[in-house]
């Protein structure tokens, strides 16, 4: 579940040297030239790729079974609930990202600058979602906020709020790691002092000095959060939200071919988020790309 490793550069960064050195040592014979590769390696990769790709092909084939083949897609695109669910999840995802960044960036910055002793505590808190699986988090949140003193599950707005809060919690591990790695690559103290000596206040320092330097880290955290939130089912369904995940789950029970079309679209969205993530993280030390299972 952990992408970028603490202080050391992510594996993407040290890939080229490691790759060449390992290849040199493993293929000493001049006959096996770089770029061809060992037979066993090809077999393993082809088997692995098959396992990855077959369910996707099967889903595509299934979605094209009705006559005419585009029917499932036409039906889905005509379905108002499809767009409503997608829009709802997307908006919730955006709010989650903004809130998560708003909480994590100042905290990580401040802990690095002023309270280094508190760092393990903050790190521990951000890792708590790994100990509290989404279903347990949802259980605790719903039971706690459905009674006095604070009843939130009774209203639509309250449930939306709980959903966003739960997603912000889920995003903590990735967001904190990404932002903290980003902060590690700049001299926070010198930049702060330089900004202060030019007369900047704290808000101004965070907004115009720290945040622009964290753009890559923030974007990779954001795309991963979006990838997780868009298809999330466990918390959204238990809070009875009309999000994309619960919509797809219901569709899977009610219809035959349409769910295949929507699953493929959902896979495409995950893929898109990951491609953006890879583009953003290219050449940087920040590499966070694992969200974990649901």
């Amino acid at each position: 579940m952990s992408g970028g490793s603490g202080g050391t550069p992510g594996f993407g960064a040290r890939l080229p040297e490691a790759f060449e050195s390992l290849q040199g040592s493993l293929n000493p014979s001049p006959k096996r030239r770089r770029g061809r590769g060992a037979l066993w390696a090809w077999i393993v990769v082809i088997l692995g790729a098959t396992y990855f790709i077959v369910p996707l092909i099967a889903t595509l084939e299934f979605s094209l079974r009705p006559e005419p083949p585009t029917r499932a897609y036409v039906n889905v695109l005509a379905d108002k609930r499809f767009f409503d669910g997608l829009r709802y999840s997307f908006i919730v995802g955006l709010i989650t990202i903004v809130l998560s960044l708003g909480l994590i960036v100042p905290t990580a910055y401040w802990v690095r600058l002023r309270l280094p002793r508190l760092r393990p505590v903050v790190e521990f808190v951000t890792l708590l979602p790994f100990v509290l699986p989404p279903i347990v988090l949802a259980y605790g949140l719903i039971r706690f906020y459905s009674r006095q003193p604070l009843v939130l599950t009774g209203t639509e707005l309250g449930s939306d709020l709980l959903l966003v809060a739960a997603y912000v919690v889920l995003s903590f591990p990735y967001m904190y790691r990404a932002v903290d790695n980003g902060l590690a690559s700049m001299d926070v103290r010198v930049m702060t002092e330089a900004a202060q000596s030019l007369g900047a206040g704290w808000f101004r320092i965070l907004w115009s000095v720290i945040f622009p330097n964290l753009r890559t880290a923030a974007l990779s955290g954001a795309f991963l959060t979006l990838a997780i939130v868009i298809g999330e089912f466990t918390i959204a369904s238990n809070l009875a939200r009309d999000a994309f995940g619960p919509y797809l789950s219901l569709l899977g029970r009610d219809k035959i071919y349409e769910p295949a079309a929507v699953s493929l679209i959902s896979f495409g969205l995950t893929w898109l988020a990951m491609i953006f993530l890879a583009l953003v993280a290219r050449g940087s030390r920040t590499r966070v790309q694992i969200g974990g299972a649901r």
Partner: protein
Amino acid sequence: MTTLEAPPTPVAPPAAPRARARSFWAWLGVLPFFLFALLFIGFPAMFLVLGSLVIEETGSIGLDNYFGLTGDCCAIAFRNSIQLSLITAILGALFGLILAAAVILGGLPSGIRSALMTFSGVASNFAGIPLALAFIFTLGNLGLVTKLIQDIFGFRIQETGFSLYSMAGLSIVYLYFQFPLMVLVIAPAIDGLRKEWREAAENLGATPAQYWRKVALPILTPSILGAGILLFGNAFGAQATAFQLSGGTIQLATLVITAQMSGDVLFNPGLGYAMAMGMVIIMGLSITGYSILQRRAERWLRS
């Protein structure tokens, strides 16, 4: 006490209150984060802890709910969850290790490696409802692979007793996110194997098999075990995939909690809270194990 302090310099007295004021402001900077964490992690978690300790009949405090977990409802669910997570963690770790080794050490074109890494990122995040559905379209009663096997070999895989909606079926589906997660987690460790170690082994007359058995695998062991534990936790906490596939036929810890939330199936809320706490304890143990092993692994990976 005060006699031990250095005689105050003229500057010191005004500095002290300012320092205290500054430390107050410093703490204020992390207040929003901790307040949020308290509201949305701390309180719900405390509620579960307290709820699991309150005995419903008497209203007193005790561990009865935890003993209640050994009853029929929960013991099976926990056993199934642990079994499923263990099997998919072991198989996922094994296949993931082999695939990562093939891509990193097998001398394949470098494009394949980056393609695999990106794909692993997608696949490990492609979980939940769409994943469950994709496997229904593959291995379900009307699935593509089911159909192909019937066309080619003349039998339905369901006739062999296989069902996608069983523990075995669920394991195959879970592997779809376990195995790429292993690739992502173990790749840095395989990258960390240095060529000097291999050269040294070869100079001492080691065969490739001996190098792997005596040098590479012992170095990788903490990483592999750590990653395996991570995979275990990953499967243990998963709910959506199993929910969509099983429709209530398979008892898993996450599914019993889901049912408990929607309708108090256990008739005893305390049991549900104890169940949730049981999950938290297992997850906590696995994350602790992972971080200990990770720290051990990093000894070798330092360059």
